[in-house]
């Protein structure tokens, strides 16, 4: 089989059993789109590979990956069934009537907080709303060494957590049909007041508007941030690098707003190339990689929540506070981008970081909230119009 980008080399064991030569290529998850895109353009696709939901939407639309509805059912039946959240995120309707990937893990942001700092400020419990978080942040803020809101406001994926705050205040990116942008709304104004007030109060660390993808991680790990939203990499890192910080940290679901509480879970899939000459073998490999024992070991070394009901029994979900949070996210989380319609236009909106850019227009460019909202509404609609 041709190179199979995947997380771990156990697929080699499967290859031995099947007498198939498996080439495993491990790539950074953030580079999947670039590498697979290049492979597609070069006509050199791997037989099977990991990918995120947005990319799967794109490849499914272009018929570059193989439908796997039957395999999805077979694997579900063999392993106690799929979790409800997995079924929601794998709805064939979203992909044009067929399912094109086998889910293997759920990821999402948890709120990491400095419990040691917040306890001293009188807050023992995690904030349940963004307003509560703001209140706690104001008390805990101690510049120039410690800033409360370690949330990126820059042009990086992490900054799209701002969409969840926007939705918490009742704002929406687009209407239910997924055609018309609805950024220009009273709810967006409420959200903008929350974020710009926090910025004006000096709660965001300097540099948050130009952070790269590691900006929030670095701020938290260097003891400069009280709250960050992170999928788990920080936890794994500080466990070894800074046990004291790890001991003083706690994890919870993202807070909600006055209108809604979202806890987005992103499904990660394994797909089979439409051009593969060994599709049946690839299906067999995907079934092998969905086995209970395989996934149990896998979750112990990764930062994903389960997708199958049997997967909940993996010991790591009892042993690690972070993984317990990921299990909770898998059980009680909301689909990515809920309640917005998760389509290609929204994916492009997110890739262009229009919500954090809307905030930047006010806090960096010193534009009025009204102008920022109107400009973002226009840019958003221009994107959605391309997909009509």
């Amino acid at each position, binding site marked *: 089989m041709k190179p199979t980008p995947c997380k771990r080399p156990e697929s080699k064991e499967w290859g031995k059993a099947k007498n198939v030569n498996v080439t495993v290529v491990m790539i950074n998850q953030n580079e999947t*789109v*670039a590498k697979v*895109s290049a492979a*597609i*353009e070069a006509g050199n696709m791997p037989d099977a590979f990991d990918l995120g939901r947005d990319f799967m939407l*794109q*490849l499914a639309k*272009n*018929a*570059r990956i193989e439908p796997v509805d039957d395999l999805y059912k077979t694997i579900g039946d063999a392993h106690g069934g799929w979790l409800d959240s997995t079924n929601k995120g794998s709805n064939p309707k979203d992909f044009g009537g067929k399912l094109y990937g086998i889910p293997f893990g759920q990821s999402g942001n948890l709120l990491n907080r400095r419990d040691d700092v917040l306890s001293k400020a009188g807050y023992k419990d995690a904030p349940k709303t963004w307003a509560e978080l703001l209140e706690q942040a104001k008390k805990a803020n101690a510049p*120039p*060494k410690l800033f409360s809101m370690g949330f990126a406001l*820059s*042009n*990086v994926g992490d900054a799209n957590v701002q969409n969840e705050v926007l939705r918490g205040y009742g704002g929406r990116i687009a209407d239910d049909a997924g055609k018309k942008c609805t950024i220009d709304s009273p709810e967006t104004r409420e959200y903008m007041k929350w974020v710009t007030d926090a910025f004006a109060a000096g709660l965001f*660390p*300097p*540099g*948050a*508007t*130009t952070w*790269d993808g590691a900006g929030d991680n670095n701020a938290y790990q*260097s003891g*400069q941030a009280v709250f960050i939203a992170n999928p788990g990499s920080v936890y794994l890192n500080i466990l070894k690098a800074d046990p004291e910080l790890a001991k003083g940290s706690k994890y919870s679901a993202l807070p909600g707003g006055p209108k809604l509480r979202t806890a987005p879970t992103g499904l990660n899939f394994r797909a089979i190339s439409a051009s593969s000459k060994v599709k049946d073998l690839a299906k067999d490999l995907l079934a092998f990689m969905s086995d209970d024992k395989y996934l149990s070991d896998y979750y112990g070394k990764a930062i994903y929540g389960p997708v199958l009901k049997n997967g909940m029994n993996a010991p790591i979900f009892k042993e690690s506070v972070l993984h317990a949070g990921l299990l909770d996210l898998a059980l009680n989380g909301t689909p990515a981008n809920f309640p917005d319609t998760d389509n290609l236009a929204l*994916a*492009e909106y997110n*890739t*262009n970081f229009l919500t954090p*850019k809307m905030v*930047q*227009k006010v806090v*960096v*460019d010193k534009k009025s909230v009204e102008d920022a909202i109107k*400009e973002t509404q226009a*840019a958003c609609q*221009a994107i959605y119009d*391309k997909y009509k």
Partner: protein
Amino acid sequence: MAQSTSSRSLAGLKAPRFSLGKTDAALGMGLVAPVLICLMTLVVYPFIFAVYISFTDRTVGAQVVNFVGFDNFRYIFGTQGFQESVRNTLVMVFVLQSMKLVLGLGIASVLNQAIRGRTVFRGLTLLPWAMPAFVAYLLWKYMFDPTQAGAFNMILIDVFGTQLDFLSSRELAMPSVIIASFWRGFPFWVISFLAAMQNISPELYEAAAIDGASAWKRFRHITLPSIQHVILVVTLLSTIWTTNSFENVWLMTGGGPSNATMTFPVLAYYGLQTLRLGEASAVSVSMLPIFAILAFVVVNLLLKED
């Protein structure tokens, strides 16, 4: 046979067309073919393909591609990011090239003098250029860090009790990127100018000095005219590189804050993230007229020099 043809050309005689024998022509074609194939495959084809897809709705993996005329260009020209990237690219290139030209000439003039430790200084001048770009820009990013960890803010806090948001404020982000880019790029200018200055005959300066010409006059009337060709070529080449430079902006600000440092190459990279290859190509292709003019001038100058 080839020798005689060459001799005739050198003698200024107009060589008749197709004067080579068939065997020589075939041999010549055979020798040139590998280079031609490489150029066609690695340069011409990708170039034409990029121009072609900028007029289509091609996305990654699309099996059906439609011709959309100027739609991609109309869309990107209307985006705020593109308009700001045009302005930022022009500002960055103009300011950087001016700084490199003035300071490059000044430093080269100093290093051309018989000063003590000249060889060491010449070596040190090359260091920024020898350093890998990503290391250089990450170092500058850390020095500009807005917290107490940044070298500049450490000094500012100690001396003035205040700190500056170098990379996160609209006013300071572009100047900060320009300073880092200047530091990384000026050695090329200095070394090129220095090499050209060393070819100027010392007698010219001696004669001018005897005639009472001041240092400025000697620089103005001897040095500058003697190296003007090098100045032009270096300026044009560096302008092309600077316009195309990606890592300086990407590593330091990612184009932010709020498009304050967004340039053409960074915008094109963001375009690729959306998998809409047609639009991403349109961003790159929109730079082509500028590059075509610059490349035309450079090639003409080089041919003249030959």
